[in-house]
């Protein structure tokens, strides 16, 4: 089709034989010079025809243009190949390979495949109890997080009030706290002498679920809230005008519109709950173990790699199933939804009192107030209070002063401040990796290719990059340990590399970056791309001038989130951190494990430090984002 020849139908005399080869401007081939002259005269400015429009002469020309087009198409394929390939290679080398190595250990005996482990492991009652408990905990945790989180999303993203920014930053803190710390915090709250000891939840199912909700509340609030903030309110207004009371309009119009965001958040929360490790280990112990803790127990305590491998496979299967279900639910609706034009979406001031008071606001404020104070505030407050409790029983900053030491009886090899610096450096590297890889994934996955095969591969890619969310960080970390001393049979021991921890943390953070940037990219109207293309912007420039400015504001948030998660990452890091270069969470874990009030006090002080840094990072990211949104 792309030959420069004239049309097959015999052209009438005035048509140039080979328009493409004729050295005429874009208007070339117009039969009568009179028309051409007339057009030019009538053109604006009457300047030189070529002025202000270089490059235009090439347009639509045949001839050598067809080679150029072929090259352009080829380049395009290469560019997208690289964009999809870099993350795939990253994921393949640093996620699939270590995890599969670990799993392989369980199934390969003397070089032969041995699947007898499945029958063996599933023959145990313990396995079934663990699987059942995992599902029950994750389901209940997810439901509660959604029920509590949706009012929070409304309050924090659809209304305005003083201190909202602070509250938003506060809500995200639990999500990025090290899991072991949260476990200890909840334990101290629920212990018989703790503030909520009367509930008798210490070491119970309820306690574990409460801690899971504590962690994941922020996921729901932020995912649903971010979506809600851009939802066109006029559909709800239309329902109100049609006679629906507020609750009815919410149920019939707003809630269905929020479904993609809720489904997306619920899927992520379910995965986090199902793979929760530290918090379950501390709170539930062996009695309320999950598949995740069971993998850890089998690997490190019972040294039964086969059982651990079987359980890993079970976990991957469950996770893949959930991802698939959530992905298809989301894909069906996400694209059909148009986000409102920004000028129409305006958060309204919170109305709790006076004639304009709304019950919805009161309900949301009440629910969120209880959640923030009891569920989030109490454990965090307990940690803060205990950090101020000096080892000698008095109050003061002694624990913070001790951060410059290596702990009682030299519990650590470095001071906590040194560990904090290591943490920041590691997190910076991890963030860079995660944002580059996650940004590329979001970019590729946000495309809407025409061909069905390409569309399907985009969906597969989307699901693939959610996998690290569902596979335990413990598995990743342990997999790194056993595979990176001779990766792919190469004589290259990477275990000593300072990049290994950032890479492991990036693997954990990439899905979060994707989830942050992707919805924003997907919400860009295709016709905006088309408008730019028609105005002469090639594919690369459409990306630079349309997608980039819009996505950049969510990228700020992604950077903050990735940084915070890397700072708090514990599961994988605990396997990989060398004693002389631990990160803050590893130090905290070590301090908790050592005897002595001094070490425990230091652990709490370090927790406060980590929480404060995390909150600061999130607050800055939030500020960056809203500042950028102001341009919009």
């Amino acid at each position, binding site marked *: 089709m792309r030959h420069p020849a004239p049309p097959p139908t015999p052209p009438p005399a005035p048509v140039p034989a080979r328009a493409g080869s004729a050295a005429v401007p874009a208007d070339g081939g117009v039969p009568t010079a009179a028309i051409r002259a007339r057009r030019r005269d009538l053109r604006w400015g009457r300047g030189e025809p070529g002025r202000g429009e270089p490059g235009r002469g090439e347009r639509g020309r045949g001839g050598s243009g067809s080679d150029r087009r072929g090259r352009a198409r080829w380049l395009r394929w290469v560019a997208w190949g690289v964009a999809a390939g870099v993350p795939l290679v990253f994921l393949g080398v640093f996620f699939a390979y270590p995890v599969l190595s670990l799993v392989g250990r369980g199934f390969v005996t003397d070089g032969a495949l041995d699947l007898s482990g499945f029958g063996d492991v599933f023959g145990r009652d313990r396995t079934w109890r663990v699987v059942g408990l995992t599902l029950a905990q994750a389901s209940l945790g997810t439901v509660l997080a959604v029920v509590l989180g949706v009012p929070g999303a409304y309050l924090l993203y659809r209304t305005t009030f003083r201190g909202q920014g602070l509250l938003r930053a506060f809500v995200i803190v639990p999500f990025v706290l090290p899991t072991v710390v949260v476990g200890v915090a909840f334990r101290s709250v629920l212990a018989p002498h703790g503030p909520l000891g009367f509930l008798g939840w210490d070491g119970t199912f309820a306690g574990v679920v409460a801690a899971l909700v504590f962690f994941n509340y922020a996921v729901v609030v932020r995912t649903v809230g971010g979506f809600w903030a851009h939802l066109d309110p006029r559909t709800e207004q239309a329902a109100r005008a049609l006679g629906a009371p507020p609750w009815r309009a919410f149920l019939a119009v707003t809630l269905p519109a929020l479904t993609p965001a809720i489904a997306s958040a619920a899927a992520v929360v379910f995965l986090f709950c199902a793979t929760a490790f530290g918090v379950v280990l501390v709170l539930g112990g062996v009695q309320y173990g999950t598949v995740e803790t069971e993998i850890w127990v089998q690997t490190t305590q019972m040294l039964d790699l086969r059982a651990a491998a079987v359980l890993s496979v079970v976990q991957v299967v469950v996770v893949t199933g959930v991802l698939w279900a959530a992905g298809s639910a989301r894909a069906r609706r996400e694209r059909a939804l148009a986000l409102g034009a920004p000028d129409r979406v305006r958060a309204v001031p919170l109305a709790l009192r006076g004639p304009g008071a709304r019950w919805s606001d009161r309900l949301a404020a009440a629910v969120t107030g209880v959640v923030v104070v009891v569920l989030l505030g109490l454990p965090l407050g307990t940690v803060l209070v205990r950090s101020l409790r000096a080892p000698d029983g008095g109050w003061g900053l002694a624990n913070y002063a001790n951060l410059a030491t290596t702990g009682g009886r030299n519990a650590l090899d470095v001071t906590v401040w040194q560990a904090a610096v290591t943490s920041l450096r590691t997190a910076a590297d991890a963030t860079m990796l995660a944002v580059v890889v996650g940004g590329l994934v979001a970019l590729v996955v946000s495309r809407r290719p025409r061909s069905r095969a390409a569309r399907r591969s985009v969906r597969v890619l989307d699901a693939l990059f959610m996998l690290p969310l569902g596979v335990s960080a413990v598995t990743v970390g342990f997999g790194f340990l056993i595979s990176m001393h001779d990766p792919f049979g190469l004589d290259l021991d990477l275990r000593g590399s300072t990049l290994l921890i950032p890479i492991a943390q990036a693997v954990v953070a990439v899905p979060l970056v994707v989830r942050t940037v992707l919805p924003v990219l997907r919400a860009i109207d295709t016709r905006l791309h088309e408008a730019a293309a028609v105005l*002469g912007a090639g594919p690369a420039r459409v990306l630079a001038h349309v997608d980039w400015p819009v996505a950049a504001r969510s990228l700020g948030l992604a950077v903050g989130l990735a940084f915070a998660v890397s700072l708090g990452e514990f599961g994988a890091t605990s396997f990989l951190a060398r004693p002389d270069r631990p990160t803050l969470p590893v130090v905290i874990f070590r301090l908790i494990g050592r005897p002595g009030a001094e070490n425990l006090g230091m652990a709490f002080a370090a927790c406060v430090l980590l929480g404060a840094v995390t909150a600061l990072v999130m607050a800055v990211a939030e500020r960056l984002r809203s500042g950028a949104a102001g341009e919009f």
Partner: protein
Amino acid sequence: MTDDGGAPAVQATTAPGAGAGLAVRDVVVHYRDDDGTVATAVDELSLDVAPGEVVALLGPSGSGKSTLLRAVAGLEPLSAGRVLWDGVDLAGVPVHRRGFGLMFQDGQLFPHRDVGGNVAFGLAMAGADRAARKARVHELLALVGLAGFAHREVSALSGGERQRVALARSLAPRPRLLLLDEPLSALDRALRERLAGEVRAALVATATTAVFVTHDHDEAFAVADRIAVMDAGRLLQIAAPAELWHRPATRRVAEFLGYEAFVPVATAPAPVADAVGAAEGVLALGPGSLLADADGPLPGRVVSSGFRRGVVETEVDVAGVGRLTVVQPSGAFHAASAALPAPGDEVRLTPDAAAIAVVPE
């Protein structure tokens, strides 16, 4: 546009496969929904647009006119056929190299750029320097009546202002062909009528070749040199407005244009058939084809009647013809305030041969 410079419109209609301007040849476009169903949106359609000409694509919604426009722009792949510019096949020429402009129904202004930034976008893509861009933006904003708006945020604009900015943005890089996709449909009627005139003026002033998609008859007649009537993906007729109105090619076209009653010449009431003088075919009668006349040869019975802006429209049931709208000047205030013809009243009518079209059987 066709009154000087060598009547390009005639040339284009008489020379299929011609060189100058846009040529659409046997184009088929299939539209694939997200659920996988395939529909034929454009069905073996051919069309020519001469340089400097403004052609309106008129048709009911779903007739494929927007899809055709997008196919010409390069945004929809062709299943068959060719799109040519100046005789050169555009297959494989990507959207951004076609040098065409496209204006969307809702403008699709870039939300992160101000008005000036939007208008300058195409110029920046073409590599124009800052001074040239600034001058051109200034020039075009003045052309669309928005001088001094360059630094406004697009979110602060009204609907009409947005469309003006979108028009300015489309015209700024001097597209060799401007495609307008229902550019005025989202606006209210008064604004639409005024803007239709302004769009026409802007297109003429810049001598822009344009294809203008609309489902609004008034808009098509107001803006276009020629009107192409589309239905179900096919081109029914393309002609200058007057020719289209007075010589509709088929009964379908006549119906679409608003002709109300169709009577074969053989069975038409004698006064009507005699007045037209056609030997065969079907007579198409619309508002204005029959005039109220106390001595008229045709009897009719009033069905309903109403006062419109300066006219009285009466729906009359005419024996042997059918129901038809008769339009009369409403007269002075006192006459207009008098009782309208009541349903059931008998009226006399006389045919106006000039307002009756003949279409093939």
